[in-house]
């Protein structure tokens, strides 16, 4: 018992310690003074009104007190409502129910009085419930309004942000010293940056290829169209080097590069393009290629000169010996008496040295004969296709169309792919050169033919200016060239390569007026 009492005391202490004076007054205010005051006010008003009107209306007090209860519950909460019920009951019992001015209630009124109490309690509850629900609705509405306001503000902010980021993006695209555009999946231009507009001098609008045709060089435009169409089909990024006309009226080389943006389902949503100025690079590259060409020619001449010098030296040594021995031989024979023995020795030396000279010649010839060719069993068709792919841009620029008529089931041939491609490249470039001044159509036809006698044949046919009989007779000779700056070695090398492959190369007149080069190669065994 003592223990229980201590526990209760300690719990009470702890409770009291937590309950500060301030909290205590709040409590009293909330559950004592405030509901009491509200209930008291309403019941007092109802009492005054009842005193004033009791003689005019029969039992008006009931409604007035109902009103006081309702008001108390509405404004003061359920506690105030119940207090109002108690205050009202006491006042009615004391003042308005017979016997008057006593707390006792006469028998006939007891029922009415009980009914009043119950109905007043019910009114309190209903009024309180109404009040609560009304408050809840109002709170919900307030909250909703607050949130709507909040969201509106947010939306406004995000709109501003969006505008700002759009503006920034535009500034960024204009700040990058490159020309940019974007187009929809079908190639209709949606946007282009200020640099592009400034460079070409007018807004770039509408379909990509139409818009670009106004400022691309006509030759490069064809390349661009082709590349663009194949990009539309394959949906892959592409790049084209092209000359672009500036507002000032001159062309500069640009690298036009475009990548597609894919949507979630993998379809193309948009194309983004960038034009990079490569004029300097292009010029440097051209200069480099020219310099390289010159250097190669020069080094060939130099090495030929050096080779000639060393061959000359190699040959001169035994020849000098032969010459001096010959003089000596004559001198021995002329002596008086003739020294036949020395003369015969010297003649032997002459034979020796002459043999040495011819060995030098044989060695030089061996140097130029290549016996160590690479040989691989390869399909000529695939070699041709590979090379034509590489030459495509060049052909389009030169306005030459290349037609391939390749034999199916072409047997493989033992060949050195690099050398055969070199021959082939030579023939195709020659053909294109031959058609440079010819009128259209500039058609180049490459055929492969399977021949019955274990040979395959390839022909390269152009519609160029053709060959005069004199030229045709000498065309495969070394150092023979019809070109202003030709080395005259191209076709000579072709022939030596083909002959090393045990094949044959010759040229005939084409039915279309140009030249046909024929090559036969043996089929791989």
């Amino acid at each position, binding site marked *: 018992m003592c223990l229980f009492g201590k526990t209760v005391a300690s719990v009470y202490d702890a409770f009291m310690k937590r309950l500060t004076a301030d909290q205590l007054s709040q409590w009293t205010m909330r559950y004592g003074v405030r509901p009491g005051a509200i209930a008291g006010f309403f019941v007092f008003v109802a009492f005054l009104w009842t005193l004033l009107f009791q003689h005019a209306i029969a039992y008006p007090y009931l409604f007035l007190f109902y009103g006081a209860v309702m008001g108390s519950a509405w404004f003061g909460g359920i506690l105030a409502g119940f207090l109002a019920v108690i205050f009202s009951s006491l006042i009615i019992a004391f003042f308005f129910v017979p016997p008057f001015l006593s707390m006792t209630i006469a028998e006939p009124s007891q029922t009415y009085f009980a009914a009043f109490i119950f109905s007043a309690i019910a009114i309190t509850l209903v009024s309180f419930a109404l009040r609560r629900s009304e408050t809840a609705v109002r709170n919900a509405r307030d909250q909703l309004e607050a949130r709507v306001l909040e969201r509106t503000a947010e939306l406004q902010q995000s709109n501003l942000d969006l505008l700002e980021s759009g503006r920034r993006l535009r500034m960024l695209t204009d700040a990058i010293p490159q020309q940019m555009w974007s187009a929809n999946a079908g190639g209709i231009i949606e946007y282009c940056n200020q640099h592009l507009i400034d460079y070409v001098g007018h807004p770039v609008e509408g379909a990509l290829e139409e818009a670009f045709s106004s400022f691309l060089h006509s030759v490069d435009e064809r390349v661009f169209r082709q590349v663009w169409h194949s990009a539309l089909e394959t949906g892959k990024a592409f790049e084209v080097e092209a000359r672009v006309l500036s507002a000032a009226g001159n062309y500069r080389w640009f690298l036009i590069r475009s990548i597609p943006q894919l949507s979630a389902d993998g379809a193309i949503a948009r194309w983004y393009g960038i034009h990079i100025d490569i004029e300097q690079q292009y010029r440097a590259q051209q200069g480099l290629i020219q310099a390289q060409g010159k250097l190669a020619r020069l080094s060939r001449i130099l090495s030929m000169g050096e080779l000639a010098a060393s061959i000359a030296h190699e040959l001169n*040594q035994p020849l*000098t010996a032969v010459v*001096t*021995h010959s003089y*000596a031989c004559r001198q021995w024979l002329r002596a008086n008496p003739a*020294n036949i023995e020395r003369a015969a020795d010297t003649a032997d030396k002459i034979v*020796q040295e002459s043999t040495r000279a011819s060995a030098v010649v044989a060695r030089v010839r061996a140097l130029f004969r290549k016996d160590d060719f690479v040989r691989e069993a390869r399909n000529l068709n695939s070699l041709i296709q590979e090379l034509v792919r590489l030459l495509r841009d060049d052909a389009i620029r030169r306005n030459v169309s290349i037609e391939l008529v390749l034999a199916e089931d072409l047997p493989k041939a033992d060949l050195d792919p690099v050398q055969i491609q070199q021959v082939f490249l030579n023939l195709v470039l020659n053909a294109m050169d031959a058609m440079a001044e010819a009128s259209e159509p500039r058609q180049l036809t490459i055929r492969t033919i399977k021949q019955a006698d274990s040979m395959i044949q390839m022909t390269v046919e152009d519609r160029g200016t053709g060959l005069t009989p004199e030229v045709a007779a000498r065309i495969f000779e070394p150092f023979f060239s019809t070109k202003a700056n030709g080395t005259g070695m191209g076709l000579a090398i072709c022939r030596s390569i083909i002959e090393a492959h045990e094949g044959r190369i010759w040229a005939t007149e084409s039915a279309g007026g140009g030249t046909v080069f024929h090559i036969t190669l043996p089929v791989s065994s």
Partner: protein
Amino acid sequence: MTKQRHNTDADQQTVFIVDDDASICEGLSNLLEALGMKAEPYSSAEMFFEHWDSARSGCLLLDGRLPGMTGVEFHDKMLQAGSTLPIIFMTAHGDIPMVRKVMKSGAIEFLTKPFPKEELLHAIEQAFTIDRDRRREEKILNSIRGRAASLTEREREVMSMVTAGMLNKQIAAELNLSEIMVKTHRRHVMDKMGAESLADLVKLSERIKMP
């Protein structure tokens, strides 16, 4: 003609052949031998310098392209060693810059292989003549220097004054001697130097560049 020189020259002139190609050496020495000349072949510059004696006269037949040493370097080395042996260069291909360098460095002739016998003989003859003249000159100078060395101090003084064109009277005054004494010294100088006249003496002193 060659026979004649062979007979007259006690100390026979030799053609030193330096070429790394044995067959060239052999051919050349065979030819020169057939012509009655003395030839010595060497297959490298090193071997030549090993056996070389600056007292031996003749000329050098040098290949322009020696392994390890260019003809010009060879020539420089010889000059450093104090040789005056004339050089004839041979080369398989006459490249112009080398010819210029070689000729500047003092070669007397340049032959492009293979060369006719006449050209070779002409060059050798020329070289022999140059060498012989040079050696003869050297000999004379040496004898003059020897004679000048035998003069006494006073005689040398007198000689330098005489060759400078001073009169006996002036020399006597300068050296504080009697004119008779000057005349005696002068006679001794003429005798020792082997000069027949004043003009001779002046020439001799010029040649050995006496002060």
